[in-house]
């Protein structure tokens, strides 16, 4: 109901008017908002309005022991928490000058790729929903749940794994886990046709997605776009291949790309990537049993654990793009500074504002979702 003292904001002589999307609009993938100035159905200017989720994690981390931050980092991106844990751990390991044992590195890859699958399944549904198709969302979330079951199995938690620790991972995979994983991958592959029929070869969706939110390679680079969004513009850049971490250099996988840089290209890249992740996981299943040894390099008693003074920038390829932790230690028992280079800030703020300009109102939600930004990671 309109308050009695409400006065519409006059916009002068133009035909432009302002609408506000979010922060709880169904088309918004989490709590952030968009202020749009429209001329008819066309967006004249879009301004993102973040901050609803701001928890000050980076600052919080300066006040907590090195190990306590393990429980914070996965919260920075709820749909894809594994890269957060791994990246933080890698950065701390680099400052300490230690490496996780090989077996732990393989297990980390397993966790990272499973997390990517879960994140992409989530995004398919979300993206489709912005065009009014809700079934892919139901399917995506239901299948993601099967992945979460596995997370629960080996990390002890469904969403917040809190499974990595500087030096390795916290516990060994449970008995029979790789068989379970193998079954899940079989199942996900068997679902390919269903998803294709429902979404990827569905003319209604294809036509809605094509040509929407077109981003050129140059603009993408200009705006700091990374990950599937960048690869959808034809640039095959992937941290896993171009700056390999863990044991990615021992794995075989393609970097799926598309050329057009529109919403359709982006979802196609994600679709292909999901199957590349399955491919990687198959290699992990084949190789992991032969890799014996510890899963953790000992760190000192966490209550008196001083990380030597130094700094490290550890980047990984998350489902959203290049994710990095820049960690600085002054030699104390807590980080001096932690900065998260989250891919979503670039995607959700400047890129979205750029793409929204000139878009039609009905496409704004789709553009937003096709960039697959993660608002909690924008705000941190």
């Amino acid at each position: 109901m309109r308050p009695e003292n409400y006065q519409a904001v006059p916009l002068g002589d133009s035909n432009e008017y302002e609408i506000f999307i979010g922060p709880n609009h169904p088309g918004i993938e989490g709590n952030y908002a968009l202020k749009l100035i429209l001329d008819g159905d066309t967006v004249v200017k879009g301004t993102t309005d973040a901050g609803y989720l701001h928890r000050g994690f980076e600052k919080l981390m300066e006040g907590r022991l090195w190990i306590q931050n393990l429980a914070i980092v996965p919260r920075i991106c709820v749909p894809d928490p594994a890269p957060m844990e791994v990246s933080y751990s890698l950065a701390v390991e680099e400052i300490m000058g230690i490496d996780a044992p090989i077996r732990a590195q393989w297990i980390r890859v397993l966790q990272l790729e499973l997390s990517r699958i879960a994140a992409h399944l989530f995004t398919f549904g979300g993206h489709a929903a912005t065009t009014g198709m809700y079934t892919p969302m139901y399917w995506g979330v239901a299948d993601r749940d099967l992945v979460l079951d596995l997370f629960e199995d080996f990390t002890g938690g469904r969403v917040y794994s809190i499974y990595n620790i500087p030096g390795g991972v916290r516990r060994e995979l449970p008995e029979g886990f790789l068989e379970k994983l193998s079954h899940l991958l079989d199942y996900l592959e068997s679902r390919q046709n269903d998803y294709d029929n429902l979404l990827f070869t569905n003319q209604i969706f294809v036509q809605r997605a094509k040509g929407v939110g077109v981003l050129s390679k140059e603009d993408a680079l200009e705006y700091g776009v990374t990950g599937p969004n960048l690869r959808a513009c034809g640039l095959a850049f992937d941290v896993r291949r171009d700056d390999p971490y863990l044991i990615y250099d021992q794995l075989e996988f393609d970097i799926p790309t598309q050329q057009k840089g529109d919403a359709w290209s982006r979802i196609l890249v994600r679709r292909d990537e999901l199957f590349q992740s399955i491919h990687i996981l198959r290699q992990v299943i084949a190789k992991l049993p032969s890799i014996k040894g510890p899963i953790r390099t000992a760190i000192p008693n966490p209550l008196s654990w001083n990380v030597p003074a130094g700094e490290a920038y550890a980047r990984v390829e998350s489902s959203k793009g290049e994710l990095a932790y820049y960690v600085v230690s002054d030699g104390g028992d807590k980080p001096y500074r932690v900065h998260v280079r989250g891919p979503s800030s670039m995607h959700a703020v400047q890129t979205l504002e750029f793409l929204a300009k000139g878009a039609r109102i009905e496409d704004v939600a789709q553009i937003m979702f096709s960039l697959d930004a993660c608002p909690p990671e924008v705000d941190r």
Partner: protein
Amino acid sequence: MKKIDYRDKGSILNPLKNLQFFARKPITEKLEPRPASASYRGFHINDMDLCIGCSSCQKICDNAAITMVEVPSIKEDAAKGIRNLRPAIDYGRCCWCALCVDICPTSAIEMTREYVHTCDGDDTDSYFVFPSENGIHDLKFAKGWTKTEDSDLLDRIRRPMGEMKPEARINNFDEVVDGFTMEMAVEEASRCVDCGLCEDACPAHMHAPNYIRSIYEGNLEQAVEWMYETNPFSHVCGRVCTHICEDACSLGRVDENGVKNSQPIAIRWLKRFAMDNVSKATIKHIAQKGKTHIKSGKSVAVIGAGPAGLTAAFDLAKKGHRVTVYEALPKAGGMTRYGIPNYRLPEDRLDQDIEVITSVGVKINYNVRVGTDISMQQIHQENDAVILAIGLHNGRSTRISGSDNKAVVKAVDLLRMIPQGDKFIAPKSAVVIGGGNVAMDIARSMARLQMKQHNKVNVVVSALEALGNSFLADDEEVSESLEEGITILDSRGPKQCVISKGRLTGLETVNVLSIFDNKGRFSPKYDNSDLQYHPAEMVIEAIGQSADITLLGKDLIEELDWDRGRIKINDNGSTSVEWLWSAGDMVKGPDVINAVADGHRVANDIDSYLTR
């Protein structure tokens, strides 16, 4: 994987293919509790018997979700390192990271596979849970996330202390242990979880967590400052303390249901390290801290320059009283000098402790035996208060047949002779009766002298207690003795010293069937049929000690109240005679750190008596 071309326009009919799903069985499932995975991080359970109240869970908790709650029904036991604090968890704050589980030194706190808790309306208090063995709803769910060897966050194993090889140490009295290097000390100190159970357990309440922290931070001077707040015998205690603190250490708990292998922090060796690596001048300077420059005009006499007497003297001198110590022997230290061999406590270290103590203004009169050279009455008349701290210097005898032979001697008497430099010719073979640390001290000293003089060790220790079970001596004493070629015959009771034509030829022992009664009281049972003979030129009795109270004189003995053979003292160490206090071994039994604690106690009481 089927490739989809960007140019693929898709078909409007494709989605219809999924109509086949109408023919499939719906996957909607009834919503009911599903068993969580085997390592699920569900709600907490806490084994109240394993939990020691160390608060490590509280310290590591990310979100301050854990509050340590006092449970009065749980009995505290400082010496065993048990507090009556137990964790309570606020599930409004908990983030289920299970770091509390992974750090718990005793594996008491764990998580179950239970994960549903809801409440109605005002029942929000139900999110604040005091976990017991049965979990949040008393439903006894299966365990979920428990600590594994991989997930254990603590550094369980001690940095090994190097020591001289048996061959290298057997013909001399050089100190056996090497001591830590800076790196080892810092690493060892880093293992501490700062629970403070050690401080509670220590009779003198040494600030062990603080000095361990200082050592960890590389600030050895500060560590020594912490030590001198409670212990002027830090060199001595850094080497020969009975380290009750380490028995209480939360990292030392092993239990068949909990942690299998864990070693307490080497608190004693850390103390040794800090003391050895701070210069004497600095230590003297530290010891002066808190010394008043105002003279009280009162004077106190201390009889016996052992740890108890000198600790009291140190405190009282710093408080401005005139303190005179009377020592019957030529040097100070009491049993630490005349009972503990040099290979455990080098004399120069003891000398340094004494030097620091005298530097605050304590005057020691050596070679003055009270009762002979000066009377008790005279001391009383010359002083406002007197402390009696003469220790236990009389050896007990078994008084078995033949024990009155002159070749049957008491360990304390022998030990006193060795550092005094007496020309002592070691017997070629000796049997020691006793199984405590004194027995080991004399056996190992004897072995060294034998090696020096006869180039061959022949020492047998005959102890009532069974090795590895109730044996009184410390484990390392036993293992080092064995390394040095000493024979330990455990579960043997002395029967008689065999005398032939007035000369001792050996000791006869019988087998000990059991050593304690069903109530745990010392009550050995012998099997007289199992007789053994150990030939020896000397039998050394190291069974027990008593105080020589003859110096008090008949009247004072009569005037004093006694408590089962010992002078009766109140909690502050004061006797029933107004001007007399008593402290140390003679009233508390043999133990250095107890003597130090006693010294402080008595000094405090005397100070308030003198300044009342």
